[in-house]
């Protein structure tokens, strides 16, 4: 069968060829950009990594630019802890919200809440940081952390003085920022559940919740997992809001109340005023670590979501 590209191939003129070459070139630009990204970070980071040694850079927990010791561990730890807190908070809320909108609540609720979710996604992260710094942090310091400390203070997680700034604040602000990602992707995934599955369960006498648990959730599990990974990818790389509330102190503490640091935050704070090539290179090394983690996660998440999106289409065909 002749495709549109073949029609008139005999007298394909210069314009067609130029057009095809032009847009193919612009498409190729994307690949070039990807290559440049990898090369540039590697280029900035390489001298420092060579001098420090990749392994000792990754496992050292000492970060002191003045004495020239650079270890990535406190930042990796901070990034992982804040992201974990964010996932623990945002995943149940995001999935619950999506379930309520698509399966339980009144239909009229859907447009306004969807609009609100889109608004959440559109707010610049520096504004989240501003709100976190002047609203969330005082609230944590005055109310939440003293309360948790009184009730659960025997756990190392909730010990120490309530200073507000710290892992908990970073995690909560991240939760707010990844909520739109998780809930909107979950909503999309729930849309792909074939109605007969749900209807079958309901017809057999299942309650709404039982239909969700027995029919809807098993079908959409992989997709929700993909949504969670996309959210996690965003949480790991989020910079400004975390920088403003995490306390900016390169240490590893078990308590969520303690001040910490995250990979993007230290780059944001120190890169412009880095003292010498080694410092700059070490920060670029941190960026490389961050880049690697998010690349892995995002690739995985996209493949999962894609597989789910294709599933029902294949079943229908």
């Amino acid at each position, binding site marked *: 069968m002749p495709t549109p*590209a073949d029609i008139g191939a005999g007298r394909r003129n210069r314009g067609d060829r130029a057009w095809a070459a032009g847009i193919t070139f612009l*498409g190729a630009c994307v690949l070039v950009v990807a290559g440049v990204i990898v090369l540039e970070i590697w280029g900035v980071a390489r001298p420092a990594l060579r001098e420090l040694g990749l392994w000792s850079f990754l496992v050292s927990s000492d970060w002191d630019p003045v004495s020239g010791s650079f270890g990535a561990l406190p930042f990796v730890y901070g990034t992982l802890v804040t992201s974990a807190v964010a996932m623990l908070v945002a995943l149940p809320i995001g999935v619950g919200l999506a379930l309520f909108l698509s399966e339980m609540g009144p239909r009229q609720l859907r447009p306004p809440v969807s609009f609100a979710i889109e608004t959440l996604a559109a707010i610049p992260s520096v504004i989240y940081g501003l709100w976190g710094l002047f609203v969330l942090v005082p609230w944590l310091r005055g109310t939440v952390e003293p309360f948790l400390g009184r009730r659960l203070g025997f756990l190392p997680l909730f010990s120490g003085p309530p200073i507000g700034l710290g892992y908990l604040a970073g995690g909560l602000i991240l939760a707010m920022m990844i909520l739109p990602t998780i809930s909107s992707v979950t909503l999309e995934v729930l849309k792909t559940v074939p109605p007969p599955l749900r209807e079958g369960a309901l017809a057999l006498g299942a309650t709404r919740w039982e239909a969700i648990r027995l029919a809807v959730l098993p079908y959409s599990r992989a997709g929700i997992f993909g949504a969670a990974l996309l959210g996690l990818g965003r949480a790991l790389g989020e910079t400004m809001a975390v920088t403003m509330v995490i306390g900016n102190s390169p240490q590893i503490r078990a308590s969520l109340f303690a001040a910490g640091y995250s990979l993007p935050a230290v780059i944001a704070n120190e890169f412009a005023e880095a003292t010498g090539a080694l410092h700059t290179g070490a920060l670029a090394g941190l960026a490389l670590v961050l880049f690697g983690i998010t690349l892995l996660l995002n690739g995985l998440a996209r493949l999962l979501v894609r597989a789910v999106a294709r599933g029902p289409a294949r079943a229908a065909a």
Partner: protein
Amino acid sequence: MRSLKLRRMRNHAWTVLCGLAVLAAMVPLASLLWLVVSQGVSGLSLTFFTSRPAPVGEPGGGVGNAIAGSFTIVGLACLLGLPVGIGAGVFLAERGNGRFGDAVRFTCEVLSGVPSIVIGIVAYGLVVLPMKRFSALAGAVALAILMVPGLARSTEEFVRLVPGALREASLALGVAQWKTSLRIVLRTALPGIVTASLLAIARAAGETAPLLFTSLNNQYWNFQPDQPTASLTVQIFNYAVSPYDDWHKKAWSAALVLLLLVGLLNVVARFAARSRLQGVR
């Protein structure tokens, strides 16, 4: 077998829990919007928009140069990023069915997840190091790289929405392919592409992290692309983390301005998308 009563109660309990999740998502949003408006609105005045920052303790002063700087940086980013993003999207829609197209598409998806701070370092290595100077251009390069992947994907979707019959009708009339693509397909998809571009611009305008060490900041007016340039977002950050109450106030006001700008772009983008739907019908 559990009793029906117990199962019903369970059902209600989960419904209430999920309802609470909706509430838990809405309360912080409402709080954020309310505070930005209520804290920010008192600081807005004509001088806030037209003058440059004043030293601590001095009355007056504003973010005029930061607003102008944001426009400069985002404008430059558009010059670099929009053609590549839209072009790549058109490529994906028109000739992106092969293996090469798949590679480009997957690269776009993966790139859209790369943290913006990492892109900042790329622009630093690409522009700041060779020029030996922080500049608006470096910031623009970072924002442009951030714009491309998302824009390409949404442009592709909008171009693919154009009915095949339109293209075939044009080709059947003997119009050359490139003319069909440009004048028929792209013109039909234009409102959608405008929407996608506006959303990409809105996102870029709200970015802070990649600007911190590319365009840096500037206390003065600057319109030269090879000089450090102030931006609204970096200014908000600097004001917010400063120890002065006076500057915190300014941060809220600047945040309100930024929020209005980004909101306006989003609203216009939605409007364009709506007129697209009517056009297809």
